[in-house]
């Protein structure tokens, strides 16, 4: 299982690029962290999701 933004998903073995392509995230407006480390944009297709990975996908929102 892979935990993405706090949710356990059964996507072990897929690449990050595959996962993102199957969702509605705007790829230009997100940044991704895997187990506490930034995944650069050009590494999405080379990043294979492993069992136990913790992924955070973030974007900007209003704030002070």
């Amino acid at each position: 299982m892979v935990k993405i933004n706090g949710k356990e998903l059964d996507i072990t073995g897929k690449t990050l690029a595959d996962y993102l392509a199957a969702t509605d995230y705007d790829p230009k407006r997100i940044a991704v962290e895997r187990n506490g480390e930034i995944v650069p944009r050009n590494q999405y297709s080379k990043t294979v999701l492993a069992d136990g990975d913790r992924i955070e996908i973030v974007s900007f929102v209003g704030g002070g």
Partner: protein
Amino acid sequence: MNHDKLMIGGHEFHSRFILGSGKYSLKLIEAAVKDAGAEMITLAVRRANTKEQENILDFIPKGVTLLPNTSGARTAEEAVRIARLARELGCGNFVKIEIMRDSKYLLPDNQETIKATEILAKEGFVVMPYMYPDLNIARDLVNAGAAAIMPLASPIGSNKGLATRDFIQILIDEINLPIIVDAGIGRPSQACEAMEMGAAAIMANTALATAGNLPVMASAFRQAIEAGRKAYLAGLGRVLTRGASASDPLTGFLRD
């Protein structure tokens, strides 16, 4: 006045009003930026939502410097992670460090803020730490590589004004970096007072977000900040400790 520049991390600004973007409609951002005359706007980083069709970046006018904050961070480590994610979002290398352990008063953790400042400054960020105004901490932040210091005026979102006035004045007098008063400024008159004291800039969000008319309040803040800056540059007149001093000539009275 045209030569009066605010330099932060080697970047030049002419506006001294940093605008927050929280707690109001994305549709009001453009008007707020324009009426505030703002050249810098703060943002937060949060988990992305796939259903969210609108992104705040599409509402911010071009040329405005983005200042992501690390709100939500409880430790230096979390703040560093958020700052790196913000930079990966591709909008520059400014960051406002905001680290809170306390969720009731939202007071910044000064010690963790120093640690995060040191790490991020070394990584090339323009670091603007939000802090509780304390001279020793401010000196540590300077040594850690901060580009500006952002002391709080009163608790975040309180609109209570310059509760820490005398301690902010000490920072202004002793610290050789822009002192940007952040948090708690609720009215234009308070922003003006901070600028008269010599603050380099004002950051406000809730004062606008909770105002009856946001763009008009943004404009009022802009004018107050400009007035306070002019007064500071002009040099305020002295205050008498006692007695009075006539403004009119003391000769030529119509008597005898």
